[in-house]
């Protein structure tokens, strides 16, 4: 057996294979680009035919995603009540927005409810009452429906409405997700309304619907990737993102 000759042949063969694979890889990558854009344009046109209009651009397709394991983090109402009572309200007549945010953050930290997943969502003011809403985010992806809503008056938190899912970790494997366009097509199919739909926002989130399950109190759960579509002045629909 002439090993030297065999090795030379093998090297040449492997080299050709590598070059071939590299070319294929890059051609596929570049192929996706324009195709995806054209697909987007076609989808937008199709949706507009059905009276679904999109503000802005559609987000890019997400890579494969795993599930997110979460635990229900429930408040002890007595403990929170006590903490609310312990606060000292501000003496000032007027409390600024920044002051309110600062106070709320302090309060949540004091109650042990503040962590890196707590992200400010919005602040609403109605005369002397501020409604401060926080959302839940894990590694940049929101977890829904999970929130903390604080009602603040005179610089002190008067009420807390909290539904919190504590992220524990990702599932073992990843699966392909629907593109945003496909999710919108799904929305279109499920909508029976004749009115036009103006899509204000479409974003990938981790989502679970607690009402799907009725029974004993849940301790842990699994949030699955979903496209959250906000349309027609604040209406929200979640479309499961795993393609089957």
């Amino acid at each position, binding site marked *: 057996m002439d090993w030297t000759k065999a090795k030379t042949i*093998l090297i040449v063969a*492997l080299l050709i294979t590598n070059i071939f694979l590299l070319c294929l*890889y890059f051609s596929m990558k570049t192929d996706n680009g324009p195709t995806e854009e054209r697909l987007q344009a076609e989808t937008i046109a199709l949706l507009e035919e059905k009276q679904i209009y999109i503000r802005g651009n559609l987000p890019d397709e997400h890579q494969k995603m795993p*599930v997110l394991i979460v635990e229900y983090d429930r408040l002890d109402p007595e403990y929170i009540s006590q903490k609310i009572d312990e606060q000292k309200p501000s003496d000032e007549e007027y409390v600024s927005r920044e002051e309110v945010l600062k106070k709320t953050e302090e309060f949540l930290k004091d109650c042990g409810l503040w962590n890196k997943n707590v992200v400010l969502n919005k602040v609403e003011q109605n005369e002397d009452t501020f409604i401060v809403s926080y959302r839940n985010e894990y590694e940049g992806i929101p977890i829904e429906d999970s929130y903390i809503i604080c009602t603040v008056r005179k610089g002190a938190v008067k009420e807390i409405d909290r539904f919190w899912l504590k992220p524990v970790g990702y*599932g073992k*494997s990843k699966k392909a997700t629907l593109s945003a366009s496909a999710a919108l097509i799904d929305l279109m199919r499920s909508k029976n309304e004749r009115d036009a739909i103006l899509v204000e926002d479409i974003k990938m989130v981790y989502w679970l619907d607690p009402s799907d399950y009725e*029974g*004993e*109190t849940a301790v842990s759960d699994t949030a699955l990737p979903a496209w959250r579509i906000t349309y027609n002045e604040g209406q929200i629909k979640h479309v499961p993102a795993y393609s089957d």
Partner: protein
Amino acid sequence: MGKPKQYIEPVKNLILVVLFFTTMLLLYFFWGNPVLNSFKISDLIGDEAVEVPSYQSVTQPGRIVVHLGGGSYTVLEEEDFNAWQKYIELLQGLNPAEVLSVEEITAEQFDKIMEFRSIVYRFYYDLPQEAFLKRYSIKDIHGIDQIGEFSNFGFSSGSPESLFIYDGSKNKYYRIVSAKAHEEMDKLLSLVESSSNANYRRIGDLTGTANRTVIPIFLSTNMSELKCFPEFEDLNTIAVKEFAQTFFGESLDFVRQIHGSKGTHIYMYGYGEKVLTISASGKVEYKNKETSQSSQQSYFEALDTALQFVAAHGGWQTEEGMEMSPYVRFAKAVENNKQKGYRIIFGMRLRPESLYLESSHSVMVEVIHGQVTQYLRDMVYVEEPEYLKQEGTAKREAFSVINMIAHNYTYIASVLSESGYDFSGLEGEALFDAVSDLVVFVKAGYVKPEYAENKENVLFPAWIVNTGSTLIYFDLYSAEPLGHTDLWEE
């Protein structure tokens, strides 16, 4: 060139290795992670062959009653004398040319003919006629289609050329008259007569009422309490995960998993179309709300689907403990969203005695248009040495059945009132008579009550009283009530 040449080979080796690894790497990037993860030995070798019981082995009469004459009866177990098989063979051997007629008879005529030496095979559910005839390859006999469903089958030495059928759905009796007498059945009766103890009597003979249900006058047994174990004790084991996986394809990685505060594990697919719930006590409930796209099945086709489904989802035996024999205990036609199917309750036999669970069933399967829409599995097992230990103990006399009913008739009446029976205005003897008239069978078996103070996971030897759609349990020796099961409760 000597010196460079001796470096060429090692360099070539190095290049070869590098190129090999880059090829592998490129292939990996090309096809991504799942290649490695989804590679399973089982996909190559195939799943282990799982035992599926045959429809014949699970379709057995609930009771085989032999009348030896003069109101004296004996009851056969399924394997005694191959009695049921003999009758089936008789039916299969019926030559339509030799059948003279299939005629309806009255209940009185049936009772009278059964006064002779006779045998009745009682099913406690109805076997649809067409499906039964087809599945058992019984030839098409003119006139047999007037029978809607087969519930009881009989033979009497007083009319040996006849075979008797009772249709429970229509409450009608029929006889199939042949030209020749069925000698094999007569021989069977003689065999039974010479080798059995006649210790069963009609309830009516004991109480002065009309109930023809037979009960034992006495029972000498060494049945005792048995320790039992749930199939799934710890839900966090690989065995449970593999079991759950059978419902959702290859992997549970994309199935929503919820853990409840009481230790329940729920697996949910989609918007809850498929939900698998395993309670901390090991009870399994699977529901599939998807609408089936297949066509309607006959009873036996639905039974086949159920047998296969259970074999593929948990199997018909527990991993540990003594072997048990499954059989169809009850079945009924159901309808859901305008689609028809069957709900089949399976029981488990330890040896001759059956196992009953107060709050559920060992296995229950609902099949609609070829799809399993509900699957309930509550399997417990008994260690064989513990079961065999009973045989070494002295036999005791069980509590008299008639007195068990006599002591508990008000309790039985209150249980049945919950199911809609009306006993208002009845008390004392009149109430007892009304209650005892409703008894359809009484058997000895093992019961796991829903709540047993200080005795969790124990099987109690018990009398099982069936009044149609309710099973009521009493301690075999003390006649204390142990609980009851409403067979068709959702």
